């Protein structure tokens, strides 16, 4: 059972790819950070929310044959590093695509899907996965 509070705090990032931007150096982080590791104390308390593009392309990928419990019904599937159109790298599952059709450079977009559930009576966790952007 995961922490409901922890999952709740991550909703802006999970649903809408909200990251954070350092107002000092302009670097964007995803998942969001409360401090820029480059500008350090200069950035504390000043990090700004930043909406990352939901569109991008497959930078690289791997096919998963031995899946964790919740994704076992979808195997085999691809997990990709997606480079968004604003240059941010995000790791995520690719769905609605045959693993044989996945290729580097393939245009993809983020969708909201079920990530996992805390058993039959627990919270359902939703978050981003990527699908081919046709």
């Amino acid at each position, binding site marked *: 059972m995961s922490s409901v509070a922890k999952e709740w705090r991550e909703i802006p990032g999970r649903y809408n790819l909200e990251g954070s931007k350092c107002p000092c150096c302009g670097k964007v982080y995803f998942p969001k950070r409360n401090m820029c590791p480059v500008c350090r104390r200069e950035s504390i308390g000043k990090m700004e929310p930043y909406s990352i593009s939901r569109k991008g392309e497959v930078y690289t990928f791997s096919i998963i044959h031995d899946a964790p419990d919740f994704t076992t019904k979808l195997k085999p599937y691809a997990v990709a590093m997606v480079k968004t159109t604003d240059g941010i790298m995000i790791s995520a599952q690719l*769905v609605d695509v045959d693993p044989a059709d996945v290729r580097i450079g393939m245009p993809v977009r983020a969708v909201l899907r079920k990530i996992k559930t805390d058993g039959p009576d627990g919270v*359902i966790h939703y978050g981003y996965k990527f699908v081919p952007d046709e």
Partner: protein
Amino acid sequence: MDVGIVSYGAYIPRYRIKPEEIGRVWGVDGKAMGKGLFINQKSVPSPDEDVVTIAAEAARNMMARVPDVDPKDIGAVYVGSESHPYAVKPTATIVAESICATPNMTAADMEFACKAGTAGIQVCMGLVGSGMVRYGVAIGADTSQGAPGDALEYSASAGGAAYLIGSENIIAKINKTLSFTTDTPDFWRREGMPYPKHGGRFTGEPAYFRHVTSAAKMMMEAMGTKPEDYKYAIFHQPNGKFPTRVAAQLGFTNEQIAQGLLTPEIGNTYSGAVPLGLASVLDVAEPGDRIFVTSYGSGAGSDAFDITVTDNIKDYRRENAPTVAQRMAKTVVIDYARYAMFKDKIVMPSSE
């Protein structure tokens, strides 16, 4: 004040199963069953899809087509469904969060068998028309259940559509809406039960046909119109047969209902059915086109709408999201074993 549709978006999962495959498992002539119901295949949600994800995708498609609308101006979000993932915990809050409409808004889930989506449109019309909200979002979406081996298993499918209701830059004016509602127990699902039950043939004449024809006739009488005054008509479509028959009874032609009749290729998307049919019509509609809509929800009631497409549709960014036809073009047909796994009909070991 004119109230109408400012934007819309649709979503249908990519998987399909055919009636002959379902019939093969249960020892039934599935092809004949499909022919009788006028259903060639039905949509199946992926294991990671539910009403929340379908509604969110439809809502995001809706917002993509109106980039100038600030989601913070949305004052209400209603999701109509009979398959909300939670018994207690609104689908609507999750969907609202996914389009960045929270927190200064109201939200609720609706349930009225297959017409909860159009009921949401009526509520949003009232809120917009009274000036309580600038925009309201009404969504009809379902991942409907049919008991294994039951006639409903051949039709119960998944999909949904979202509507942004407002009074500014409307692409389609809703001239009037009215409803016909009675206590008719033709189809129901008790709390905690996994599958609905239905009254068999009782779902026909006293239920679907009585309510749809009554609401439709009341609308044409109120508006002083005849079937030939409308370019398109959309009727609730639990299968392909009922809407075709009710259209003929009312005097509408097959040409008028063709664009909005999706059930033969995607099955009965329940609360999503009429909203998706209307989306398919709006995908091709031109200024001045008049659209007749009548939904039906078991239990029972029908909501009728008289709609006129406006000139604003010429500048509307339809191309910013996939059309219903595009969503229906790329499909993967699965067998019953995979369908059973996708729909949680196989008991899995506990992961706890």
